[in-house]
């Protein structure tokens, strides 16, 4: 089995070349990571790209749409803004519209949200006893979107084995591909 011709390339590599194969793999992963962290810093949002997971914002956003967020803390939150937020204690981000805003002179803001396609406001979704959201709960506000592309992420998360298989195959391909 070890005499398959494509493996002969790999057998002739010295220590340095083997190390470089791993480094190339590391460079690809690092580039993706640095672009992501760069986006986080540039937009000010801890998750600058999110996927719409439910149909609660139809017909504006559908399940599977990709949203681009920015989180400008200086820009005041106004009713009508589409905010992406996380309820304390839960991971899943929710994309809904701001319905009511209350502002105090000292800068404290609290607001209520509701999905366009939902019959009732989000108080049922908030943590027990919580009636309002605050600035700290907001991950960002939607500035742009690309339709459908997020379905790939949804499928990969529904079938994690598929995700690991794809990532694994990509990794193996990069590691075993000796460049000239």
């Amino acid at each position, binding site marked *: 089995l*070890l*005499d398959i*011709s*494509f493996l*002969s*390339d790999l*057998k*002739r590599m010295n220590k*340095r070349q083997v*190390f*470089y194969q791993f*480094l*190339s793999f*590391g*460079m690809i*992963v*690092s*580039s993706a*990571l*640095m672009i992501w*962290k*760069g986006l*986080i*810093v540039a937009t*000010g949002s*801890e998750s600058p790209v999110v996927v719409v997971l439910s149909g609660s914002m139809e017909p504006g956003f559908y399940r599977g749409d990709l949203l681009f967020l920015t989180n400008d803390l200086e820009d005041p939150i106004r009713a009508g803004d589409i905010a992406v937020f996380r309820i304390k204690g839960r991971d899943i981000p929710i994309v809904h519209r701001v319905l009511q805003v209350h502002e105090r002179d000292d800068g404290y803001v609290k607001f209520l949200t509701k999905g366009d396609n939902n019959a009732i406001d989000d108080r049922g979704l908030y943590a027990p006893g919580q009636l309002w959201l605050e600035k700290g709960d907001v991950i960002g506000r939607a500035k742009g979107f690309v339709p459908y592309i997020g379905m790939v992420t949804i499928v990969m998360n529904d079938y994690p084995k598929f995700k690991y298989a794809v990532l694994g195959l990509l990794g193996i391909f990069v590691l075993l*591909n*000796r*460049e*000239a």
Partner: protein
Amino acid sequence: MSQENAPIKIDKWDGNALKNALDDAAKKIMNESYGLVESFKLIDGRLALCSMAVSCSLFALLWDFLYPFPASKTVLIICVACYFILTGVISVYLLYFEGGVFYVGLEKDKAGIDPDDKWTLQSSLKKYDDQYCLKITYTGGVSKQTRSVERVCSVTEFFDEEGTLCYDLYEATVKGLKDSLSADKKAK
């Protein structure tokens, strides 16, 4: 288990494999037939730069994990900037300093006094092409002068139908090239 001297067999339609096989064989010829000592400085430079870039990103990952954004903002900006600057440096390094060089061999001075003479091998093989260009450059240790010779051959001259490298034929070509440079050296 295949041994050091087993013939190299590759997929003859794979351009990458062709170039790698020819390069590896050339390295072997230079090391074994002429007793040159391989110098890894160029490769080590590249490895060091890439390692620095990867460490930069790993550091950013770790820092952001320990002190979640937005506390890590400054460190992240620095790491991202450093990473992309290093990537640019690596590209420049690969293009200008390495530029297709796959072997640097040092010819030790027999008396052990003078600095080593340097033999550099560069090669190129375009995608989907069969024209393999091998360039040998000699840099005198004392004189610091460079002389080089290059030869373009079709890969079909060295590989048979099954994709096995005809080592003897290739050895003759490489030795011929190198000896022509040495002869030049003596003539001057």
